[in-house]
């Protein structure tokens, strides 16, 4: 198994590191000058901690240099361990979708603490821990703006930094959620906690991804579009259709593909209007649903993209247990799969005036190499 790299990026290098599936994904971005942002989180089971922490520590990065932690949405495959990341990064601003800033959603977050007696998360429990940390960082009930949460919606400036020495200026904008997406998400959020008398369950969203944050990261003329889990539908006011109405200009070379490459997150106009002609597509698997499918990878390649995937779409077969257990389990449960495979890693390092350099670790692969 390849060891994690030990050398950090140079001062002016844009690095985009994509990890998955640790039941989900995590994206780390070096924005130059030794500063990092973390977008979503998943657990490195080998080290029993969030991969953001284990990777940055392997590079010798002081976690105080993490400037921003973004939860694109609340699903457990995107927020696993994000409270621990926030706790370990004392100077990071926490940011999340403005669609979550409602009494209904925060009620669901608090209610998740008592939804079941099992220690199985829906993602809401992780956000409850995040909000607890933020509450403690707000002295005497007043909240410094640097703490967060910073509520993100379309065209909001998330972070800006002037040029510093060899580092060009940095701008990070949110391109989603749009007002329409937030309205749609509200309806689903309202159903997370039932009325009095209804049965307690682990919260599972019925309208998963209309509230997802999408980020455009610019370091000088190098751009990366981080698509979160935003999906596509026919409504011009929601999803990727709404992203196309953003007033923030720029075409990205690097594209963290939304929703694990699924067809229902694909908008051809995004490839035409928001990406360069030869983009690099970074895909993380979602083993619960077997994403991305082979047809998804072919579709992205057909757009002219260099398609990189951080791991296989299906988890491995479960470990063999006692023969009597296996015989009965196979008769009762179909298609048993392990959710977490090896945590793959795609790393792009891109210096000004050069082509991006691709490195693939721990099972990550290039689509064209296996097609």
């Amino acid at each position, binding site marked *: 198994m390849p060891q994690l790299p030990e050398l950090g990026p140079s001062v002016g290098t844009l690095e985009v590191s994509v990890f998955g599936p640790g*039941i989900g994904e995590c994206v780390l971005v070096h924005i130059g000058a030794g500063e990092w942002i973390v977008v979503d989180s998943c657990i490195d*089971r080998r080290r029993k901690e969030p991969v953001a922490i284990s990777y940055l520590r392997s590079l010798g990065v002081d976690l105080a240099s993490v400037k921003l932690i973004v939860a694109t949405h609340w699903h457990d495959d995107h927020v696993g361990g994000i409270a621990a990341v926030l706790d370990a990064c004392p100077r990071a601003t926490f940011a999340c979708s403005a669609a979550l*800033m409602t*009494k*209904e*959603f*925060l*009620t*669901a*977050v*608090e*209610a998740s603490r*008592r939804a*079941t007696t*099992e220690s*199985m998360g*829906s993602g809401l429990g992780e956000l409850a821990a995040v*909000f607890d940390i*933020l*509450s403690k960082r*707000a002295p005497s*009930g007043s*909240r410094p*703006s640097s703490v967060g*949460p910073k*509520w993100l919606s379309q065209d909001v400036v998330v972070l800006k930094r002037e040029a510093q020495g060899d580092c060009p200026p940095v701008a990070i904008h949110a391109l989603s959620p749009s007002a329409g997406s937030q309205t749609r998400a509200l309806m689903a959020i309202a159903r997370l*906690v*039932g*009325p*009095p*008398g*209804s*049965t*307690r*369950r*682990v919260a*599972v969203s*019925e309208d998963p991804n209309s509230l997802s944050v999408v980020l455009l990261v610019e370091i000088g003329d190098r751009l990366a579009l981080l698509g979160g889990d935003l999906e596509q539908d026919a409504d011009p006011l929601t999803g990727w259709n709404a992203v196309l109405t953003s007033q923030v200009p720029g075409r990205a070379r690097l594209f963290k593909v939304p929703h694990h490459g699924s067809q229902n997150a694909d908008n051809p106009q995004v490839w035409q209007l928001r990406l360069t002609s030869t983009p690099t597509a970074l895909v993380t698997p979602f*083993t*619960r649903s077997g994403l991305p499918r082979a047809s998804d990878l072919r579709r992205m390649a057909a757009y002219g993209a260099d398609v990189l995937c951080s791991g296989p779409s299906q*988890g491995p077969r*479960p*470990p063999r*247990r*006692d023969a*009597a*257990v296996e*015989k*009965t*389990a196979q*008769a*009762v*449960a*179909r*298609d*048993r*799969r*392990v*959710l*977490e495979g090896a945590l793959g890693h795609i790393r792009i390092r891109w210096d000004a005036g050069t082509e991006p350099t691709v490195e693939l670790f721990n099972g990550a692969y290039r689509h064209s190499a296996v097609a």
Partner: protein
Amino acid sequence: MATQPIQLQDQDRILNDEGVLRTGADENFLAVSRFRFDSGVEESGAEQIESGTCEVRTGTSSVLPWIVPTTKELPRASFQVLQAWVGVVTEVADAEFQAELHDQTNPERSREVASFLVEEVSNEDHELIAKGAVFYWSVGYRVSPSGQKDRVSSIRFRRLPAWSRRDIEQAEGRAEEWLRLFAPAP
């Protein structure tokens, strides 16, 4: 041995300090296992069920007018769990559902996902199958009082308490605190 006899008076349901005795529509008996029936009929057809009760399928109540509480252990069925999971339903289709499984026998193991036919679930639990519902799945051996050994799978859905108005009001109160604290700066 305690010898205080309890006379069977109500053919539908008798409650007493010792346990529960109930007759069914066909006048067969269900009794908790610490009872035994006078005349030793309990040995024939007695079957232990999960909750620790003892189902006795014998003749009509008129054959068994007396019940004697006893501390003597009756032959018990046992269930030897080989493997247990806790599941959370993630998708429901017409005749099947998908669930995420957490290994309770070896919690260090990774989560798994699997599909189940609804017919694998007891009829009385069908109404509980919904996204987010929690269930126990056990695989093991059931050994009858006579020593017969069967390998079985058991899926039982949890009947979690309903949300109370107080639960929701408390959560709403905390949500309002967070809204005040986390509101965007003017």
